[in-house]
């Protein structure tokens, strides 16, 4: 390095190929290539295959792409899935924030440890089981409607609606989002919060002028997790949303079932992957964006 006054001892340079480190990393690299990159590439390739008489042929044609993109149901499903995942991200982030805020700023350390434990417990049970338990609660003759009928309300239809789907997404993502948000809020330098108060910023105003900007990275990453999990989820929109209209994961299942159209399902999957990669990239860029100096 020709830079004057800049000491480069190489210890921070990631460019050097260290055989020792490489040896230890090789298994995970091999695993990733074999079971993630490989199948992904195969999926992309498969989207150009053709199915004739229920048999897949290794070709390179754009028929599947042309078919899927000319179908309204694919476009509608895409828009609906994007909308649901966005709505879920927004609802979950907003609902989680007050809880995360309280856990990060208002409760004792031991309360937080208990809360963290309770937030992890839901993951002990299969997600599918948790979704079926909502059946009992949300059904026409379920717990909620039974309670409401006492005061003369209802019954309301909650299963097989968008509401049901969102409840399902929340079951999947809310505990995780609360944990991620709380970690990012707990890392905030308390002096900065007090400095804001000291400069005349009311506690309410401090939340959005100081705390949210300081926790920005963590809040966005939490929201990103929520989006990714909701966008790719099959269980909630199928069992609680009644797949009307179908989301993309349901569309993949339906497509593979009808006439062995794996290549067309691959098109849907590739589009989903591309969407998630784009959104994840944008979110992380936004999360780590520093103010630019002029």
């Amino acid at each position, binding site marked *: 390095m020709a830079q004057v006054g800049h000491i480069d001892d190489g210890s921070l340079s990631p460019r050097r190929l260290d055989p020792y480190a490489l040896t230890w990393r090789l298994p995970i690299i091999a695993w990733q290539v074999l079971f993630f990159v490989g199948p992904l590439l195969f999926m992309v390739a498969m989207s150009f295959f053709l199915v004739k008489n229920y048999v897949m042929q290794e070709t390179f044609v754009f028929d599947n792409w042309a078919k899927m993109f000319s179908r309204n149901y694919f476009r509608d499903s895409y828009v609906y899935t994007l909308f649901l995942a966005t709505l879920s991200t927004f609802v979950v982030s907003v609902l989680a924030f007050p809880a995360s805020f309280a856990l990060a700023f208002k409760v004792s350390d031991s309360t937080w440890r208990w809360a963290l434990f309770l937030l992890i417990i839901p993951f002990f049970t299969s997600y599918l089981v948790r979704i079926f338990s909502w059946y009992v609660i949300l059904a026409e003759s379920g717990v909620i409607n039974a309670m409401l009928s006492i005061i003369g309300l209802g019954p309301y239809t909650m299963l097989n609606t968008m509401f049901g789907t969102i409840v399902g997404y929340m079951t999947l993502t809310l505990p995780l989002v609360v944990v991620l948000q709380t970690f990012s809020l707990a890392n905030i330098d308390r002096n900065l919060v007090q*400095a*804001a*108060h*000291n*400069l*005349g*910023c009311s506690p309410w105003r401090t939340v959005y002028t100081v705390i949210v900007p*300081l926790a920005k990275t963590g809040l966005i990453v939490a929201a990103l997790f929520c989006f990714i999990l909701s966008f790719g989820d099959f269980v909630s929109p199928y069992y609680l949303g009644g797949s009307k209209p179908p989301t993309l994961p349901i569309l993949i299942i339906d497509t593979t079932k009808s006439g062995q159209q794996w290549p067309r399902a691959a098109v849907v999957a590739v589009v989903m992957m591309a969407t998630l990669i784009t959104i994840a990239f944008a979110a992380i860029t936004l999360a780590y964006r520093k103010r630019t*100096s002029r």
Partner: protein
Amino acid sequence: MSTPLVSMEGVDKHFGTFVAVKNINLTIDEGEFIAIMGTSGCGKTTTLRMLAGLEQPTAGTIRIAGKLMNDVRPHQRDTPMVWQSLALFPFLNARENVEFGLKMRNQPADIRRKKAMEWLDRLGVVEFAERNIETLSGGQKQRVALARSLVTEPQLLLLDEPLSALDAHLVIRMQSVLTKLQRELGITFVYVTHSQSEAFAMADRVIIMSNGEIAQTGLPRDIYREPANRFVAEFVGRNNIITGEVAGVSGKKIEISSPIGRFKLNADATVPAVGDTVTFVIAADLVEVTRAKPKADNVVDCSLISEEFIGSMVTLFLETADGTEFKVQLQERELATLDHNSGSLFYLSWKAESAHLLPAETNK
């Protein structure tokens, strides 16, 4: 100036069972530069934070400009603080940081900008106005933090060890920036520090705290020359502390007998009675060192243990036959005149008026 700007009466602060501050009685006038000094954990920062409303006193009253402040929330006060960590907002640039207080007071954008630029200019960092906080040096951040606190033109500025993270040469520079600002603006500064040199260099009045209590309040010179108790005598500078029994009294002149000799000194306020146990101090820089036994009243013979050389000044550490320690501070060129190669025996002497008698109740 009938009512003082700040008055604290019987203020206590407990954290659970821990008593951080007890029975603070203090008044601060408008335009004063006050330094609160003490070791870490002495309650100085807690006292400052109570003035900012960041801690509520457990007992007692705090008034600012005559108004009872005990229950006034931090954001409803105008007591900006300069933090040890500076606490600049990393998501705002230098100018936006300075504008923050004005924005909270709902000032229009153009006025905010104008005032922020004026203060950045006044503190010599206007060229960094649009820069990211992380790209500024320690000294530049310090100036931005000062501008941020002063932009609302408060009556009272609280400073919590603001210079402790800076390099030594920058500390001296910032000290003169602070004193100059304080004099020009006429704002009351309350400056918390553990550094004696910072406190003595800048403050009009120094408050020494120990174990949550005020140990002494006074002008820097008075605290240095006339410590009110043993704690202050030991904490401030290099003092020699001798305890003995009063052997004779004539008017204000008293004679004390101690294991290391008989000493004469002048009592300034209350004169102790014969037989009382008293403690007095002699500042290290008021002690003479000679090779030959001087014909004077207060003489002690000592052997040299070690010396500490800090440029023009030298501190000698000596010990009497019974192990009592003495410290003597002198100019390096004075030391050169002493014959260094004739053993380690020295005679120490001081004038009766150089000794300062500690008040009786603190002679524990």
